[in-house]
């Protein structure tokens, strides 16, 4: 590093009980630089940034901003020194306006009147300068997640932040929003701001950062310039061993397990005249920017809602009414889109969560009483078979990491012979190691003859796992293309709704089902 760093974290150590969250970590940041902090969940990235911002007091080590040492544990001091933090879970008040959120804490509490006029002008100025346009009078709860994040960034910039820290900024964004965000971040760096962003996504640290620091098990294990490294190297550094995502073998499709003919579902995020057919032993990938009807499709395929028009045929029988129980009993397994909201009950134990979907089955209950022994045995089997780390049948499920919770959900669905697996955003928010193991399980299920309906925003994932791909745009589905003939450009066009053009690009890509 040539110039003196604007930010210097020296020998930070932080211990939580028995775990060493940060072990003698040193990181520095130059003016105008974009630094990525890469690491798996639990590697200590967020802890490190929370220490920098004063949310936690370190056990050892110091934080220097522009040469001056920050007092530990004082967010206010960090703000005053020009550090702004954009939290992963936004710290916004949804019932207040954008302007009110931004203004909070910026004026002396003893002032008899807020100077909203000056604040508005200043907010306007900041948002123009960095291209972060938001209506200052909008209620934050009415904004999209991407816009809310913009408010979060504006809040920091409003406080004269010269160093901006973003904790997993893309975790909640769609791909398009993420790209837009990184353009804005690059632009900020050009204007002299220094940025650190936390991520576990390889492609985005390579695309957006100048320099990458890899954290593993609380230690800074490597530092690379983005230009001098590769996805493979970073993945290995991050996980500590070679990780390879499993490869798909050729499919041997059997009978049709789920077919939709002209299926429609009303509502702003519904479906209109959707056609697809999924056969046993193959994976049908549905790609699209989230919010285009994926949720409705997943709900439809798992029996949560009933279609209003057209025919939905499950294992050869037309679906009459929506019944989750009937679907599960027929052999449908489900990985819900939002595992915390629909997949698991956080404060209940792992064994309770494991049998929740089959609570009526004679295996687990008799005469209205739960057979706890059988349930615990079942949970223990899943934990073992699916390598749910840190899991024990009587542990509350919220104590598991996202990846391990997902493995448990997969396990309870795939344990018995599943004939149709509906996997909605199965790897959202998971790190490399967990992604690879979830992918392996999905491919296994397919190999054993399950039809897999994979709904995902992640192009790489869909290309790797699916045999055929359809795009979902505003509730409509494109005709299928074979995954072997699809490339990122073509899928991009399909996701934009230009599937006629995409089909053209693909040439023979579309084939009849």
């Amino acid at each position, binding site marked *: 590093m040539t110039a003196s760093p604007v930010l210097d974290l020296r020998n930070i150590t932080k211990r939580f009980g028995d775990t060493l969250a940060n072990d003698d970590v040193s990181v520095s940041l130059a003016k105008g630089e974009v630094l990525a902090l890469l690491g798996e969940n639990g590697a200590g990235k967020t802890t490190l940034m929370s220490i920098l911002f004063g949310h936690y007091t370190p056990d050892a080590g110091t934080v220097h901003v522009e040469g001056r040492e920050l007092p530990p544990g004082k967010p206010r001091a960090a703000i005053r020194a020009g550090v702004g933090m954009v939290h992963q879970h936004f710290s916004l008040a949804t019932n*207040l306006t954008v302007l009110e959120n931004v203004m909070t804490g910026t004026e002396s509490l003893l002032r008899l009147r807020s100077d909203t006029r000056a604040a508005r002008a200043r907010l306007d100025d900041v948002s123009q300068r960095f291209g972060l346009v938001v209506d200052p009078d909008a209620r934050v709860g009415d904004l999209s997640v991407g816009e809310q994040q913009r408010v979060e960034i504006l809040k920091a910039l409003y406080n004269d932040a010269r160093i901006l820290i973003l904790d997993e900024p893309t975790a909640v964004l769609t791909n398009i929003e993420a790209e837009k965000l990184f353009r804005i971040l690059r632009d900020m760096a050009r204007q002299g701001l220094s940025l650190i962003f936390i991520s576990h996504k390889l492609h985005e640290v390579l695309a957006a950062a100048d320099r990458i620091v890899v954290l593993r098990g609380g230690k800074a294990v490597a530092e690379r310039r983005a230009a001098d490294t590769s996805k493979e190297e970073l993945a290995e550094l991050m996980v500590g061993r070679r990780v390879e995502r499993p490869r798909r073998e050729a499919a041997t499709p059997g009978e049709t397990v789920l077919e939709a003919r002209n299926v429609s579902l009303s509502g702003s995020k519904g479906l209109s005249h959707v056609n697809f057919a999924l056969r046993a032993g193959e994976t049908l990938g549905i790609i699209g920017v989230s919010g285009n009807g994926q949720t409705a499709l997943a709900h439809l395929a798992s029996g949560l809602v009933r279609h209003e028009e057209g025919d939905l045929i499950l294992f050869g029988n037309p679906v009459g009414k929506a019944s989750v129980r009937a679907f599960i009993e027929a052999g449908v397994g489900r990985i819900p889109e939002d595992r915390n909201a629909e997949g698991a009950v956080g404060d209940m134990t792992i064994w309770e969560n494991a049998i929740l979907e089959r609570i009526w089955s004679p295996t687990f209950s008799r005469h209205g009483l739960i057979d706890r022994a059988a349930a615990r045995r079942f949970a223990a089997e899943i934990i073992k078979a699916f390598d749910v780390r840190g899991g024990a049948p009587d542990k509350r499920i919220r104590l598991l990491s996202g990846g391990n919770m997902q493995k448990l959900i997969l396990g309870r669905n795939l344990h018995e012979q599943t004939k149709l697996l509906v996997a909605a955003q199965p790897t959202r928010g998971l790190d490399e190691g967990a992604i690879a193991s979830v992918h392996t399980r999905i491919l296994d299920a397919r190999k054993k003859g399950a039809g897999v309906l994979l709904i995902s925003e992640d192009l790489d994932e869909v290309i790797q796992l699916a045999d055929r791909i359809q795009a979902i745009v505003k509730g409509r589905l494109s005709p299928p293309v074979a995954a072997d003939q699809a490339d990122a450009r073509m899928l991009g066009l399909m996701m934009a709704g230009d599937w006629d053009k995409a089909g053209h690009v693909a040439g023979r890509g579309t084939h009849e089902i």
Partner: protein
Amino acid sequence: MMELFDIFASAGLWAAVLRIATPLIFGTLGALLCERVGVLNLGIEGIMTFGAMIGWLTVYQGGDLWLGLLAAAFFGAMFGLLHAVLTVPFGLSQHVAGLGITLFASSLSYYVFRLAVPVASSPPTIEPFRPLQIPFLSDLPFLGTALFNQTAPTYLAIAVALALSYVLFRTPLGLAMRMTGENPHGAEAQGVNPVAVRFGAIIAGSALMGVGGAFLTLSAFNSFFPTMMQGRGWVCIALVVFASWNPGRALLGALLFALFDAYQLRLQTVIGKTVPYQLFLMIPYILSIAALAVMARRARVPQALMQPYRRGER
């Protein structure tokens, strides 16, 4: 049938509305202040009872009427402090802590009252606040009697509502309070101390509740009896929801409830011979529930209401 409408034409009705509304205004504003920073204060019924008792006792012992109000505010604040300690640093269930305070404060008021005043056949009385004569306004025909023939605390209640509205929506302090009630973690990330804000608002809000109770013994009536609160505190809790946590609407809500109440009192004298009076007593509550059902559907509840705040935890 015309008699039912004639009631509205009497200046006495409107004077009664303001009088009945006053303790509700104080109580509702107090509860609203607590809830705006994210803490439900069900201690209100007890705090109002204690305020009524201590205000009365202060005057009975020879204190000035204003000193009585001040005492009620002070002891209200002390109960608020207790509630704040239980709910903010300890993070106990706000429901349980609040109900506990109501039970504690109610029985304590009766105990203190009995210590000071031995059992008597009729409760001893004091000389309450007199209506404030406002030059010119009080002499207006109809309006003078209807609106400008009240005691000083009634005008104070209206002033407090306007002041609270200003503080909440126009000052940095108010913004810090609202932020704390919506997202205390967010408030802290912007340098606001949510613990201090919560303590301050709960203490101030509880002081207002105490004053609301004292109005009953120092202005509306002239004596204290332990059952006199009659659920007014609970009405205030409902009015906060009705008002959508907005002081201006809290004022309107309290006046509306008081109108129902004043109206039913007069209705009893008009047609009370044919219909049991207990039916009329229910009217304000039934109408309140109806109004609440309509209004509360659109209410924007402070997002952190009833959530204890712990630093570093989400």
